């Protein structure tokens, strides 16, 4: 699995490279600017890029713009955006109309190696990785009439993991449940919320996020 990293802090860039390398991923390129990133994506056609949302020169939105451009012009390249703050508005901007091959995680997450590597691999293979903070912000959002109140505690947990981009198997592993039990919870959730059930994991991510956001 081929990875390109765009991160302007040398310390983190090197750390990430080492982390990915020791976990069986091949870092084919790393750089500090958005322009370099776009160049490397064109030359190396990686499976996934990991990009810091704040890149030089202004450290405003260069990283996000590069991410959006890659998603628009290289749909087969997964894009995982890292940031020191995660915001619902930015998540929605990044996903736009598809969560396929898209990830948005708090930078802190890289130190949880197993989870992080899993997230990178998911994004590289067309799945999604949405930071738990985003999901919990949306889940705990105050609503005037709250349809989530109808969900059981276990159903809420499943919904949360689903929104993060995990597969049913991933959810089963995380909650120590059988795959069948998870499938049952999922269809129950979709029924209660009135969502049409959908095939791919990444597609249901967006459906759930849009539902929670509205």
């Amino acid at each position: 699995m081929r990875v390109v990293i765009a991160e302007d802090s040398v310390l983190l860039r090197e750390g990430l490279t080492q982390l990915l390398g020791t976990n069986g991923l091949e870092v084919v390129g790393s750089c500090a600017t958005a322009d370099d990133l776009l160049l490397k994506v064109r030359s190396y056609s990686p499976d996934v890029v990991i990009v810091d949302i704040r890149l030089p020169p202004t450290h405003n939105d260069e990283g996000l713009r590069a991410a959006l451009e890659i998603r628009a012009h290289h749909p087969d390249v997964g894009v995982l955006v890292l940031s020191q703050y995660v915001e619902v508005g930015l998540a929605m901007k990044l996903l736009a109309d598809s969560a396929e091959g898209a990830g948005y995680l708090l930078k802190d997450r890289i130190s949880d190696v197993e989870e992080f590597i899993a997230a990178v691999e998911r994004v590289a293979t067309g799945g999604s990785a949405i930071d738990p903070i985003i999901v919990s912000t949306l889940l705990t959002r105050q609503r005037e009439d709250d349809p989530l109140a109808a969900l059981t505690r276990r159903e809420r947990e499943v919904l949360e993991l689903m929104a993060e981009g995990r597969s049913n198997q991933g959810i089963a592993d995380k909650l120590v449940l059988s795959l069948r039990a998870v499938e049952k919870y999922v269809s129950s959730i979709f029924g209660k919320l009135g969502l049409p059930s959908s095939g791919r994991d990444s597609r249901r991510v967006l459906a759930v996020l849009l539902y929670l956001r509205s």
Partner: protein
Amino acid sequence: MAMPETVSATASVAPWSGPDPGRRRRTTWPQWGLWLMALAAAAGAVATTVANEGLNGLETPNGLKFLVGLAFAGSGLYAWGRRPDNRLGPLMAAVGCLYLLAQILVQAHAAALFTAGVWLSDAWVVVFVAFLLAFPDGRVTERFDLVVIGMFALMAFPLELAWLLFWTTGGSPENTLAAWPNDTVAGNIDSAQRALVVVASVVLAIALARRWALASPPLRRALVPILVGAVAILLGSVLVALDKFQIEFPTARWAVFAAYVAIPLVVLGGILRSRLARSTVGDLFVELRADPSPAELRDALARTLRDPSLSLAYWLPQFRSWSDLDGRPVEMPTDGGGRATTMVDRQGEHVAALIHDPALADEPELLDAVSAAAGIAIENGRLHVELRARLEELRGSRSRIIEAGQKERQRLERNLHDGAQQRLIALSLELSLLEQELGPDADAGLRLSQARREIATSLGELREVARGLHPAVVTGHGLAVALEQLTARAPVPVRLTVAIDERLPEQVEVAAYYLVSESLVNTAKHARATSVSVDVSRTNDQAVVEVVDDGIGGADTEHGTGLRGLADRVEALGGRLRVWSPSGGGTRVRAEIPCAS
């Protein structure tokens, strides 16, 4: 910012100290003498004409010539008496007196007087040309002008004298200077004189036409009689030249005659107009009674002085600078910049300055009367403008203070982001790599994992600190994106509507963000609301942010709710913040912030 010393030095009109009744408006003894001489000469000319040719003699331009002299002498003497500082009066008087003198002398029977009269017969033309070129300030300064006058003088004095040496009258009275009577030589000199006058007149007409073309509109009006004078001289010289070939145009002669009579009267009218215009100062008084604003005062002054380009500048002693009507610093015109300045002083100190067309400088009495009449209004206007200048300054310093604070917080946030936060993340990553190397069961691995969680907690706290310092998302991604997180995290259900697609100036976005943030905190703490709506829109050049809740209202808008700080921030950007919070009727906070696109 111009300092007052410089201004005084560059003002084209000296500060006007006020009228001096002892010096003005009094006819002096020499002037009385000239009046008597002019009237006597005119009477003598009429008497001689009537005696020689009967009353019919007065019906030709020749017989009425005395009217030209009388018009010049009378207008000149009158203007001289009324406006001793204006040199056009004496110049016109000289034209008229020379004209009449020559008229009288050539009528004399004594040969010497007659000869002198003939010699001086064209002297008035030289002074008249000087008068035309000296208009409107009564001074001839340009070398070219002196050359033109010299051409006429050459014709009138040395060539006339030369001609007299050869010319004979062939009867009585005799030419006493005819040393070598010779009609041919006399005829040639005469032709040369006539040709020279035509050339000189053409040059004069061109010079004056050019001056007219370059003049400002108020000055152009005043220059009309001068232009007419140039045309009259030109026409007159051509007529005289054609006269040599016995070609006559009686109508044209009448026209030239009429022009010569009219010019001094019109110029006198122009000079006196400043006196007549002072009656409009009465209207100014009426307008001033209505306590005009500085802009209205300027308009009233412009009307009274008939100078639409007039502007007012106020002297602000505390700022040691000149200011326009809105309290902004203004540069005073410098010499030769095409504008003149008249100081309005009170008790020996500058109060204001009128910046006007230089042509107005020729009417110091009017300027004086106007600035005297408007004195109190101008003083009021100055106080008004001074207040505005202070407000402007205050607004400026408040916005600078807030901006400086903002920049500093932004810098701190950047430092945290690029420094401590990155290092902690890298450290945490390093620990997890170590943990991996040690394997899952090592005791050290558990402790490393514990340390990593500690770091995660610190990072969470740092993140909150950084967010409190500066909302980087606003700067990086705009108001709409940032508000989404804010409203999603609010403890009260929020309906968010952002009807702005484009980015606004950063300051405006940050102010709007803080406004929403603070209002939502207030709502959660005090309002007991069940829902809030946040609307951001744009009308014309204003961003409008409105936060409305359905809570208990009665918000204390003066103390402690953070609203004061928000109002400062909004007002520093030239906007305004209003809060409606009737008891039991919810709270509505509305900010309007200008944002020129």
